[in-house]
């Protein structure tokens, strides 16, 4: 697809919550890579794609991925991660800084931006809160922002020192950068490798109690309240965290939060058989937690669905459960898993688009999440009825560590446009 061409997506259901639109039988015109008003005289070579029966949504934005470059390119690169994103309907990715080395300075941020320049998704680097994510001293927020970082996190590790976290929040305000918290009280989770409960007891694996997360979620809320600076809680997995966030929002604390599809889909029973593709941090929780997460997605306690896409090779996963690496890939399953919530009438299609596109864009303060005229044509076309089996062979990501291999899904992204360029097409 040549960027200068005119493209017409014809006859779809337009779902654009940022502009309060949910309209059947709608067209979208794309001219020179941007969403445009219908031209008075359409050019003769206008490409027309019939999207009848499909949803046209703003490009999906995943505010929490690990792209592994630099340092672990055998797991994923920025380019391969962006391809996986396109295949899953994503046009924007916020990549966490726990690469090797850590993205804790302007030159690293710049490197990521440069590597991402010609890729199939917009890549928004998240800089680290502390140098080398060691939790000791603040990284250079301002310089990273100037180089293109959109937010700050030591994700993968909590900021244990409460004073440092307070300073990070205060100082982030000076640069208008969002702080994202990986909420984990490490002394409670130490050596744990799955949720603490009946399954961990049965398997003889050391558990991580739900309180390891909620204690830290409460601290983050208290610090946001103390400083008056917004905070975003990553990968919420427990009912208690949800309750804390809900009550904080009710009293006006500036807290936003995301969860990942595995937390509203699976429980710790997925670990049975010592399945290392069900090992992640925070761990899969109980069915009670899963229900609470689902409710929180519906009632807007949780603001976004992010994948925590964490590629690992068999070197890290085909080992004893306790020594296996944490994390699963998610870019190619997030949309089908979230669509399942729509099919179960837990959320509406509009809410799905909010969770996967408009809200991540708003929380991060990045472009996208809207189909307004003049916006870059980052667009996802979703066929809600497309039936497919997620197979290992079909995975675009370099890594294959997913607990969903072999699952049958209903609904997926069938066309992804990035600035009007087709990055994925199976329409």
């Amino acid at each position, binding site marked *: 697809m040549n960027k200068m061409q005119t493209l017409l997506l014809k006859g779809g259901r337009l779902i654009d919550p940022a502009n309060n639109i949910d309209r059947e039988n709608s067209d979208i015109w794309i001219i020179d890579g941007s969403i445009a008003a219908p031209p008075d005289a359409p050019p003769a070579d206008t490409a027309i794609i019939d999207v009848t029966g499909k949803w046209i949504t703003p490009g999906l934005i995943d505010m929490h991925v690990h792209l592994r470059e630099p340092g672990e390119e055998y797991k994923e690169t920025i380019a391969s991660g962006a391809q996986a994103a396109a295949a899953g309907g994503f046009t924007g990715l916020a990549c966490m800084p726990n690469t090797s080395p850590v993205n804790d300075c302007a030159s690293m941020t710049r490197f990521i931006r440069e590597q991402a320049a010609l890729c199939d998704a917009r890549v928004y680097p998240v800089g680290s809160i502390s140098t080398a994510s060691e939790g000791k001293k603040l990284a250079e927020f301002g310089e990273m922002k100037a180089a293109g970082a959109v937010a700050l996190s030591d994700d993968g590790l909590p900021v244990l020192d409460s004073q440092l976290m307070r300073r990070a929040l205060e100082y982030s305000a000076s640069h208008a950068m969002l702080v994202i918290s990986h909420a984990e009280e490490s002394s409670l989770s130490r050596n744990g490798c799955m949720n*603490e*409960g*009946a399954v*961990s*007891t*049965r*398997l*003889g*694996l*050391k*558990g991580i109690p739900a309180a390891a997360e909620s204690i830290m979620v409460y601290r983050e809320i208290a610090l946001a309240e103390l400083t008056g600076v917004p905070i975003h809680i990553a990968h919420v997995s427990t009912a208690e965290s949800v309750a804390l966030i809900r009550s904080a929002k009710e009293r006006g604390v500036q807290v936003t939060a995301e969860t990942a599809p595995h937390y509203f889909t699976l429980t710790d029973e997925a670990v049975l*058989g*010592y399945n290392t593709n069900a090992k992640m941090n925070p761990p899969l929780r109980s069915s009670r937690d899963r229900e609470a997460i689902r409710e929180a997605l519906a009632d807007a306690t949780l603001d976004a669905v992010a994948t925590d896409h964490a590629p690992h090779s068999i070197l890290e996963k*085909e*080992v*004893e*459960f*306790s*020594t296996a690496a944490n994390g699963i890939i998610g870019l190619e399953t997030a949309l089908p898993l979230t669509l399942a919530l729509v099919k179960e009438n837990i959320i509406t299609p509009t809410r799905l688009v909010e969770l996967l596109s408009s809200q991540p864009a708003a929380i991060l303060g990045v472009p996208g999440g809207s189909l307004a005229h003049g916006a870059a044509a980052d667009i996802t076309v979703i066929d809600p009825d497309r039936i497919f089996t997620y197979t290992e062979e079909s995975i675009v990501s370099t890594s294959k560590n997913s607990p969903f291999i072999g699952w049958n899904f209903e609904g997926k992204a069938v066309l992804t446009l990035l600035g009007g360029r087709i990055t994925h097409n199976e329409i």
Partner: protein
Amino acid sequence: MSRTYIFKHKHILGIDQFSAEDIFHILRTAQSFTEISNRSIKKVPTLRGKTIINLFFEPSTRTRLSFEIAAKRMSADTFNISASTSSATKGESLIDTARNLEAMNPDVIIMRHAFSGSPHLLKNHTTASIINAGDGTHEHPSQGLLDLLTVWQHKGQIEGLKVAIIGDISHSRVARSDIQGFTKLGARVCLAGPATFIPPKIEELGAEVCATPAEAVEDADVVMALRIQRERQNDSLIPSLREYATFFGINRQLLSRAKDDALVMHPGPINRGVEMSPDVADGPQSVILDQVANGVAVRMALFYLVMGGDKNSTGE
């Protein structure tokens, strides 16, 4: 159970995998093998030409010896690989070790490993039968079976018995195997110990948790102590072994709450004076050495059954 029963398990990973019928079949098979160990020539040709590897990533004297004696009494060729001499110390992964052993075509690999679930990983990379000789804090199925056999021999039944297990349930693979084994056969398993040693939701494995050792031991038919590992006092799980012995050790006074003919058991090795006082360990109710003897018979039965003894019963 008069219909033809065939033991269908290729691997012995945990008591978790067995039905009550499976367990009774193993116990009956083991009982029939106990006689061999009392012969003057303690050997049958049943497993002649079979190769059995003892793959131990954790130190063990008793369990390894018990498996080795069991294999030799059935005429199998046995080989011992221990962590200190194996490739584990050279950084070879468990899967590579499995593949290398596989190339030598063993029939059974007996595995002990510090990490829960390791035998489950090994079984995906070998065609041999895997027998779990203890994986982390998960299970120790042959120990559970020999405990069941010992109680069965003395009590004539398992159903309806009250079994008290006192000690570090959290870190005990023996406890997980025993809880499931005894409850599957209809016994009541009552646990006691410091709350730091009681894992969450252990009730879902079928056990009852008692507030005190006295409550667990009251009217019990079996009183079992678990070994306390000395390093636990450094993990803030117990303040000291001394305090543990005072409040949770099995002594004559605590034992007097159990039935008069209650059996005293311990998976060994015993910290005498910590989890069990010497007079109880060596007293008339102790069946600790019967447990050791039965270990050989149970392991002979497991070899026999995983190698299809039921199906091509050329017998002893």
